[in-house]
């Protein structure tokens, strides 16, 4: 808890820094701001109190709180500290980014988790060639909420797609070539990703050396990527994406991924587990549109070929309910433990189903209030019609500060993806400061 108090004090103190700067005269440009130093240090601190409105009948509530029932709401305080540093000399560069998550709730007490998000060295012998080695996040794909072609990345959270993500240890190269004519740019990014004990062991099967690659083309004013990954830690996969501005205010994009022998564990109606293996095709199509009055609309349809069908999800929720009833009548927890194991795997992931629609409206600076952006995000499971609806208010008017308030309403019938989530709603305030 003391850490949170320090964090809050630091943030309040920092709030006065922009006010000191504002006292300077008009139109001054201090050229010292343009001097380049070989090193850089910066960071971000965040304080995020959250209030969960619990759904006592939901499968995921029962899984988590079966032996410790809660009231209607559960408050939680979250903090985040990200530190970033780099050192550059001639064509060499070192870059490090750390992330520390802090959590405090009356239920679980305090918890802290620190990790290097990225830590790599770069060699750039020319503007056409760069070689990186270390821990790095590549973030392939053109989709806003989902990226089925992000073969060497961790899954993105569609609830917060712009969050920084932890990378994997890899060696990678960027080779770039520009042309005159319809093909303006070509680039190739080969990737070597080892998976051994203590090296990327969360990625997939151990003792494998994986190879991936991306070819990029700017062809007829359209971004086109082709990518692949092979090596055995995960099933082989191939894919592509594109993005293009149709007019000055209208963009279209899409992704397609083909995964050979995708494996998943499913439950039948009786709760029997089985592993199935089949080729899976995932794809996404989306648009981004801006009106004359600065309303940005993002719409994406996502088909998750490796996801669970409506019936497979229903069988899982039924399994959880049977395990919970068994615990209540006999005190046995083995079935609940088994259900928890499945939840820690694919069943508990966000976007575990097959077909989704993502719609986001954000209105920039309404009523001439600069740096204020209200938005509304709707994520709908098209198969079971369950959804989350998230109104959001964002204000960035104080230099280096970002304040966001939002409430996610999570709704759906019983035995649907969002209907069986732990919460009926989630209210959160996020106050972040960059330095």
């Amino acid at each position, binding site marked *: 808890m003391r850490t949170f108090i320090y964090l809050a004090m630091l943030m309040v103190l920092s709030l006065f820094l922009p006010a000191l700067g*504002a006292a300077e005269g008009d139109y001054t440009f201090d050229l010292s701001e343009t001097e380049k130093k070989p090193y850089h240090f910066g960071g971000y601190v965040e304080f995020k109190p959250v209030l969960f409105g619990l759904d006592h009948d939901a499968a995921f509530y029962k899984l988590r709180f079966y032996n410790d029932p809660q009231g209607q709401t559960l408050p939680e305080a979250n903090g985040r500290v990200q530190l970033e540093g780099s050192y550059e000399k001639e064509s060499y*560069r070192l870059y490090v980014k750390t992330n520390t998550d802090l959590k405090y709730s009356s239920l679980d007490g305090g918890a802290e988790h620190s990790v290097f998000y990225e830590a790599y060295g770069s060699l750039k012998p020319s503007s056409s060639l760069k070689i990186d080695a270390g821990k790095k996040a590549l973030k392939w794909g053109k989709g806003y909420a989902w990226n089925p072609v992000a073969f060497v990345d961790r899954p993105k959270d569609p609830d917060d797609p712009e969050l920084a*993500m932890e990378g994997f240890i890899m060696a990678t190269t960027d080779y770039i070539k520009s042309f005159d004519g319809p093909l303006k740019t070509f680039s190739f990014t080969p990737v070597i990703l080892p998976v051994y004990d203590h090296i990327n062991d969360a990625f997939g099967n151990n003792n494998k050396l994986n190879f991936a690659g991306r070819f990029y083309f700017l062809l007829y004013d359209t971004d086109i990527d082709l990518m692949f990954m092979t090596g055995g830690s995960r099933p082989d996969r191939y894919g592509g994406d594109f993005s293009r501005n149709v007019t000055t*205010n209208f963009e279209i*994009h899409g992704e397609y991924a083909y995964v050979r022998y995708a494996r998943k564990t499913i439950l039948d109606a009786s709760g029997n587990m089985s592993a199935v293996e089949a080729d899976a095709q995932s794809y996404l199509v989306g648009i981004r549109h801006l009106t004359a009055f600065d309303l940005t609309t993002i719409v994406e349809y996502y088909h998750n070929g490796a996801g669970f069908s409506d019936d497979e999800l229903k069988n899982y929720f039924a399994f959880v309910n049977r395990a919970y009833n068994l615990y209540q009548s006999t005190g046995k927890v083995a079935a609940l433990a088994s259900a928890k194991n499945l939840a820690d795997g694919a069943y508990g992931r966000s976007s575990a189903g097959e077909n989704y629609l993502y719609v986001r409206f954000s209105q920039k600076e309404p009523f001439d209030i*600069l740096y204020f952006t209200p938005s509304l995000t709707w994520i709908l499971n098209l198969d079971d019609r369950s959804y989350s609806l998230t109104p959001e208010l964002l204000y960035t008017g104080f230099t280096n500060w970002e304040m966001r308030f939002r409430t996610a309403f999570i709704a759906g019938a019983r035995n649907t993806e969002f209907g069986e989530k732990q919460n009926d709603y989630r209210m959160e305030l996020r106050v972040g400061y960059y330095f």
Partner: protein
Amino acid sequence: MLKIIVVVLSLLVALPVYALDGTALLKKIDRNLNPESFESYRKLINIEPDGRKKEYTLFTIKKGVDKVASLFLAPASEKGRSTLRLGDNMWFYIPNVGKPIRITSLQSIVGGVFNNSDILQLDYTAEYDVEKVEEKGGEYLLFLKAKTKTVAYDRLKIWADKGKLLPTKIECLTEANMLIKTLYFKDHKDFGGGIVRPAVIETDSPLYKGYKSVLIYAKVKQRTFKDEVFTLTFMPNLESLR
């Protein structure tokens, strides 16, 4: 007879105006504003009606008529973000998001009166045709029409100093001649290397009453770049060019 003489004399006086090659004039204005390939530092200040300011510092590079890239150096919340323009294509790179996303010319990634096409301005000749030129005292008035529908403003009216061949004021208009914003070019400064240009551009807009945005230029200097630095893949590495 007297009437004929007056008409002939009037035509002779008027002829230099009609003889003006608008495109050549605009090309000259483009070159006087910036070398064809250059780097610069810019401070962008958004000023609200109550006087509150928000400032951004950018490192900008340009090559040819249609390649521009900018890197945000300050404030800390924006540091490392970069923008790239290749003709009608524009992208925005946010380090957290980790990949460039396509943006449009009418959006504004910094808020305030400047939009993306103002910040990533190409040569005017790359985007506009000169419809006509008028002489207004010590200034030329150029009427420009966008070459394609993908250009941010359908029409521009440029007032340019006759002697310096540099703009003093630009009005940005819709196809129906509705004023979107006005740019005021001020504070002529010698940046060295033969580059003498306005160091300050102010803008206001009837759409943002009471708001003002300002661009201040520093360290403008001629520099050549390889085409490869104006690519999506290079966007995260723009800092290495400083």
